[in-house]
């Protein structure tokens, strides 16, 4: 394109409509940051509130990814972690699939705010995912799937 002027209309451009993606990474924690960064950017392009893109999405997603890599796939780089993302702009759904046998979501979630847990080093991941997302589910389907749903906040 050269002849036509593609000049700016002024103001912020209308945001992206729907977005989905599906990708697969080897089990290596060094991929967490780039995946989180990708999803954060899409979150912003879809015009979700700033706080949801800077806090809820990155923390919940990095927990789910590190559990998939370290717990599900036990850091075996030959085992892939799959990330499926879908959003129509109203809610955002992320599914993380690992090659592990799965786990009992209810029983594995501790309350880290109880006095006896407060000084523990571990056990805050699932709690944070539940606190920061509107829904967390787990099921087996070609692997262990953790599904997180976040609605657009007002």
């Amino acid at each position, binding site marked *: 394109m050269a002849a036509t002027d593609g000049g700016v209309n002024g103001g912020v451009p209308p945001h992206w409509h729907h977005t989905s993606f599906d990708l697969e990474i080897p089990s290596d*924690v*060094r991929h*967490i*940051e780039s995946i*989180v960064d990708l999803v954060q950017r899409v979150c912003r392009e879809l015009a979700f509130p700033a*706080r949801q893109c*800077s*806090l809820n999405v*990155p*923390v919940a997603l*990095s*927990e789910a990814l*590190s559990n998939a890599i*370290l717990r599900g796939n036990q850091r075996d780089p030959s085992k892939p972690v799959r990330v499926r993302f879908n959003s129509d702009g109203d809610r955002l759904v992320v599914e993380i699939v690992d090659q592990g046998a799965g786990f009992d979501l209810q029983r594995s979630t501790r309350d*880290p*705010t109880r006095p006896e847990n*407060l*000084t*523990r*080093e*571990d*056990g*805050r*991941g699932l*709690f*944070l995912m539940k*606190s*920061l997302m509107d829904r967390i589910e787990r099921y087996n389907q070609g692997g262990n799937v953790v599904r997180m749903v976040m609605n657009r906040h007002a």
Partner: protein
Amino acid sequence: MSFTITKQDEVVVVEVEGQLIVGNRQELKQKVLDELERGGRKFLIDFDQTGYIDSSGLGVLVSLSKKIREQGGELRLANLNDDLKTLFELTKLDTLFQIADTKERALESF
């Protein structure tokens, strides 16, 4: 992602630039433990340049705070942005740590 360590008077100041997550928290832990070994007893972690922290990053802070206290030392945190404050409140870790608004206040408080 990087950690910068400087000393202000007797205080070991650690700046966390970028994320504090499963991929790099071991590095933070080692750096602080090295300073503790070398005799440092007052520690300040400054989150002014920090993005997000995951549960393993929080875990490292809890563990460092214990180890420092065992040696008769103290750990203070400073400059949590609103997102990080929320994270500490959700996990009630705001009750476990001494958190200052600014680096200066944290330094004065030792």
